[in-house]
């Protein structure tokens, strides 16, 4: 496996940014400063960041209702994200999208998506573009275990495999779809076996371990880029918070949650290994922590000061002006 200090520090910074960003959101929502439906990614940082660390700027990702992590991992600016969640005109989507539809196509981020499974065909399409226009790009879809029960998953993976598209399908198996445990609704232990229906490559990674995700995503992305076709990569992970902000969490045991949070936190595991193997030093990590805190504080401050959208523009940007 290949990595350099720069890359590792950047990945740590992104994981830390996701965590800190969402800690701030929880605070802001509790204080009544932010509205809308909000789903937190905390706990799953190693998946988004481990995968995106293997991607280039021209590559694409699609996301889910739980999209903050994928945005940050793909390089979307925190300031624009924060302003978006505050519903400001300066938001990355001008305040029109919000948490569930946050997007930045300039960064190759095809959007969070309020429709479970809907990002999967979008990624398939981005991979088709890459293949037909020979751009060399790869397209990645992130989606949950629950989304693998959607028809869009099935139809897309079959098409991608038939056409050998440069795509990677990353299922974030966090054990739940809303309040329902995965094993109530998916009768196979490993979702990765679903790849066999499409003669597709598959792999399983420990989604709490940046290094494992990084390695396996790297292989899948490399395969896609070199014409070897798509992969279904299952990452076993866990969301530290409830399904949405406000979820009373009565459907999972405290012990189970504690175990994941105490013993498998992807940030701690990353740090442990990075320090143990001398890849990074503690000072560098703490410096990152501080920079992240500052960046987020600044983002909040800027967002709170930013203008609201003009109500008169409520129906702007529905259609593009066309040359024709």
């Amino acid at each position, binding site marked *: 496996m290949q990595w350099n200090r720069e890359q590792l520090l950047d990945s740590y910074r992104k994981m830390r940014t996701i965590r800190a960003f969402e800690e701030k959101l929880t605070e802001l929502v509790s204080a009544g400063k932010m*509205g*809308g*439906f909000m789903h937190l990614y905390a706990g799953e940082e190693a998946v988004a960041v481990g995968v995106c660390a293997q991607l280039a700027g021209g590559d694409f990702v699609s996301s889910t209702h739980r999209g903050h992590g994928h945005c940050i991992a793909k390089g979307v600016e925190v300031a624009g994200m924060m302003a*978006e969640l505050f*519903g*400001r005109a300066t*938001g990355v*989507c001008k*305040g*029109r*999208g*919000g948490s*569930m*539809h946050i997007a930045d196509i300039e960064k190759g981020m095809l959007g969070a*998506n*309020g*429709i*479970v*499974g809907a990002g999967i065909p979008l990624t398939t399409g981005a991979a088709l573009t890459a293949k037909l226009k020979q751009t060399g790009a790869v397209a990645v879809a992130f989606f949950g275990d*629950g*989304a693998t*029960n*959607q*028809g*869009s998953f099935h139809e897309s993976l079959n098409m991608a495999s038939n056409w050998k598209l440069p795509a990677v399908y990353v299922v974030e198996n966090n054990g*739940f*779809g*809303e*309040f*329902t*445990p995965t094993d*109530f*609704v*998916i009768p196979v232990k490993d979702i990765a076996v679903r790849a066999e229906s499409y003669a597709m490559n598959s792999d399983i990674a420990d989604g709490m371990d940046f290094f494992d995700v990084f390695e396996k995503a790297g292989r899948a992305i490399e395969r896609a880029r070199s014409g070897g076709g798509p992969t279904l990569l299952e990452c076993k992970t866990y969301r530290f918070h409830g399904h949405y902000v406000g979820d*009373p969490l*009565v*459907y*999972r045991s405290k012990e189970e949650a504690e175990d994941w949070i105490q013993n498998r936190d992807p940030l701690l595991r990353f740090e442990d290994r990075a320090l143990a193997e001398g890849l990074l030093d503690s000072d560098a990590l703490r410096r990152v922590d501080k920079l992240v805190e500052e960046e987020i504080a600044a983002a909040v401050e800027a967002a709170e000061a930013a203008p*609201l*959208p003009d*109500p*008169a*523009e*409520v*129906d702007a940007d*529905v259609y593009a002006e066309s040359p024709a």
Partner: protein
Amino acid sequence: MSRELGFGMAVNEALHLALESDPDVILLGEDVAGGGARDSGDVDEMGGVLGTTKGLVKSFPGRVLDTPISEMGIIGTAVGAAATGLRPVAELMFMDFLGTCLDPLLNQAAKLRYMFGGKVRVPLTVRTVSGAGMQAAAQHSQSLYWITTGIPGLKTVIPSNPADAKGLLLSAIRDDNPVIFCEAKGVLGLTGEVPEGDYTVPLGEAALLRSGGDVSLVGLGCTVPVCMEAAAQLAAEGIEADVLDLRSLQPLDEEAILSSLAKTGSMVVVDEATPRCGIASDVAALCVDRGFDSLNAPVKRVTAPHAPVPFSQVLERAYMPAAADVIAAVRELG
């Protein structure tokens, strides 16, 4: 006897009564039985994302079914079950998800009876949450009842208050046709007097909520309180409005609309849905056809703009019809 009840609890009570009175009634949907607390005491603490089905699985074990996130499967299965002897109430968590399960409604539920030469009944109810007002943005805020209304073979209803919610849901479930039951976000927070026990509000009957001879205000779902507020403000300046709550979108109570028009000669239709191919157009078209002789003024439509629902609260407020918009439309009638 009646007591104050929230909208959700009125729906819950109707479901309870329906399950109790007919062993063929079942509920199915995502987390309607509460998901993972199955093996603990909190089994149905959650009762769906909005808690509407809370408690039902405990009272009716085996008849309230959590499903995978598979809307095509859920609704399609419910159609097949309805055609073969059950009376399913399927939950489509948000109406925006219609895009993932239109076929079983459009081409199966709505058409089986006709295609089979009248030889089958499809007593299916689909409960769904529609509309804006919670900053849930473009993909969780749509009012898509115009789609189900336009499909022959389906019925569509949208109550504006808890009492109607209970009575219409019981009618919907007991109806032998597929009925789409919309719970508009804009009225989910309402509480109101709800009669106890079993009663129904017939499908296809509008309700006249206020009587006035100067102008007709026609609303549905969450625009009914908007119309009432506008009517109150207009009354303060001496303009008396009829306020009609459509309640059923298909069948549509054409006679109630026409008789209000006959009384007032002018009408404003208020709908939180987008403007094209919607209920407001249908009502206006009815007025300019069968109601032509009553018309003294243009029929005005107050709807959302032809745009997706925005996230930012200032935009969402601008997006949704408000009393001020209704009043402005009334003034335009001259």
